C-alpha cells in the first residue's frame, strides 16, 4: 500500500479520496486480485496520470474511483460521499452529479447531436431540458466546439468528437474527470491537443485522473503513478520547467 500525497500545498481541497482500495474478482475458479490496496488523494486543480502494464489494475482503479464498480474493501470519498457505503443506484446518482467519464471509444450517442450528447447527463439527472441545453452550449464553447453543436458524431473528426466527449464529462456542476485512454483513438498530435484541453480545464478548477499507456501524454499530469499487479509501485511528481532551466532563467543546456 502506498501513501500518495503529492505536491498539494498550492492546490485546492481534496475532492476524491481512496483508502485501502481493493478489488478481488471471485467469479472464476480462483479469486483474482485486480487491485491490492491503493490510496489516492485527488485535489481540485490536479491532474494525475496512471500508467502500468495491461492487467495492472488501471481501469479497475478508475471504475472504483468513479463508482462504476464497488470495492471488495476500502473506501472512496467523492466530494463528501462515501461511494463504498452506497448501493448501485446511489452510486449512479452521485456519479452523474460529480464525475465525468471519458472513454477510449468516446461512447457518443450516434443518433444525438453534439449538443444533445453533452446535455444528456444533465437531463438524466432531472435538469430541465432548457437549462441542460444552455449548460451544454457553455461546455462546448469552453472546448471551442460550440459551432459544431448541431452536428452528429458521424459528421465530426476524431479530435472534434473527443472534445465533445470531454465537454460532456465536464458539463454542469461536475469537476472530476476520469478518463480511460482518452487519446487512444487519436493520432499523436491530436492526442496532445486533448491533453492540452484537459490540462486547461484542470487548471481552471477541475480535477482529473487519466489512465494512459503513453508516457508523453502522462507527462502533462502533475504526477504519474505506476501500477503493477494492482499496487502502486512508484510515483513521479512533476517539478515544473524551473527544474530544467539554468540559473537566470536561461535554457537548460
Amino acid at each position: 500500500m502506498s501513501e500518495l500525497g503529492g505536491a498539494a500545498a498550492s492546490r485546492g481541497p481534496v475532492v476524491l479520496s481512496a483508502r485501502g482500495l481493493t478489488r478481488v474478482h471471485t467469479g472464476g475458479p480462483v479469486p483474482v486480485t485486480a487491485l491490492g490496496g491503493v490510496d489516492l488523494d485527488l485535489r481540485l486543480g490536479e491532474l494525475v496520470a496512471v500508467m502500468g502494464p495491461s492487467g495492472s489494475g488501471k481501469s479497475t482503479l478508475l471504475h472504483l474511483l468513479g463508482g462504476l464498480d464497488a470495492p471488495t474493501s476500502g473506501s472512496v470519498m467523492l466530494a463528501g460521499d462515501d461511494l463504498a457505503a452506497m448501493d448501485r443506484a446511489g452510486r449512479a446518482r452521485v456519479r452523474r452529479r460529480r464525475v465525468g467519464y471519458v472513454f477510449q471509444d468516446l461512447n457518443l450517442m450516434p443518433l444525438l447531436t453534439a449538443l444533445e450528447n453533452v446535455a444528456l447527463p444533465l437531463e438524466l439527472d432531472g435538469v430541465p431540458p432548457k437549462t441542460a441545453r444552455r449548460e451544454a452550449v457553455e461546455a462546448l464553447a469552453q472546448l471551442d466546439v460550440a459551432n459544431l453543436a448541431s452536428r452528429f458524431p458521424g459528421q465530426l473528426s476524431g479530435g472534434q468528437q473527443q472534445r465533445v466527449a470531454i465537454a460532456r464529462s465536464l458539463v454542469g456542476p461536475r469537476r472530476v474527470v476520469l478518463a480511460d485512454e482518452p487519446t487512444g483513438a487519436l493520432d499523436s498530435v491530436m492526442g496532445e491537443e486533448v491533453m492540452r484541453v484537459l490540462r486547461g480545464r484542470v487548471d481552471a478548477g477541475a480535477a482529473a485522473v487519466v489512465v494512459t499507456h503513453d508516457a508523453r501524454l502522462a507527462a502533462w499530469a502533475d504526477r504519474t503513478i505506476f501500477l503493477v499487479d494492482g499496487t502502486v509501485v512508484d510515483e513521479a511528481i512533476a517539478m515544473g520547467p524551473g527544474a530544467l532551466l539554468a540559473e537566470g532563467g536561461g535554457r537548460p543546456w
Partner: protein
Amino acid sequence: MSVRHALLALLGTAPVGAFALRQEFERRTGRTWPLNMGQVSTTLDRLERDGLVAEVPSDGDVPHYALTDGGRAELESWWAAPVERGVPARDELAMKLALAVTLPGVEVQAIVRAQRTETMRWLQALTRLRGEPQADDVAWQLLLDHYVFAAESEMRWLDHVQARLTRAGAAHPADAAASTLASERERVVARGDR
C-alpha cells in the same frame, strides 16, 4: 556533433567572423550544444588549412571567412548524406541494465523502476518547457520534441524490459535476455522516433 559541418553551413549564406559564427550556431540550435571560442577558432583554422574556407576582406578588424568552391561541395554532400546510424554510441542505461541482468545479486526490477521514475520526471519537465513562451522558436521546439520523443521511447523500452523480466519469472533471466536488450532498445528507439 560535427562542428566542422555546422560552421560550413553557417558560412554558406554570407562571410562572417568567428564570434558571429558562434552566436549564430547557438541561436539556431537553441543553445543545446554551447561552443567556446577556442573550438570555433580551431575549427576555422582547420577548415582554412583544408582549403574549405578562406579569409575574405571585411570592414572591421575581425577576420571574416567565406566558403571556397571546395567548401561549398563539402557542404552540399553533408546536406545530401544521411547522418550515419551504424554502431550506436555507448548508452549508460543500456549498459547498466545489460550488466544488471547478468550479474548476481543485482535488483534489476528496482533499477528499472527507479529509472522509469527519473525518465518520467525528465519528460514532465520537458513537457512544461514546451509550454514556455520561448517555445515559439521553431529550432528550439524541434529540439525539445527530439528529447520528448527520446524520453518517451526510453519509457517504452523500460516497460518492455520490465515485462520481459516479469515473463522470465526471475530477477535473473537467461543470459540471452541481456544480449538482446541492446538490440531491442535500438528497435524501440527507431519506432519511437518516427
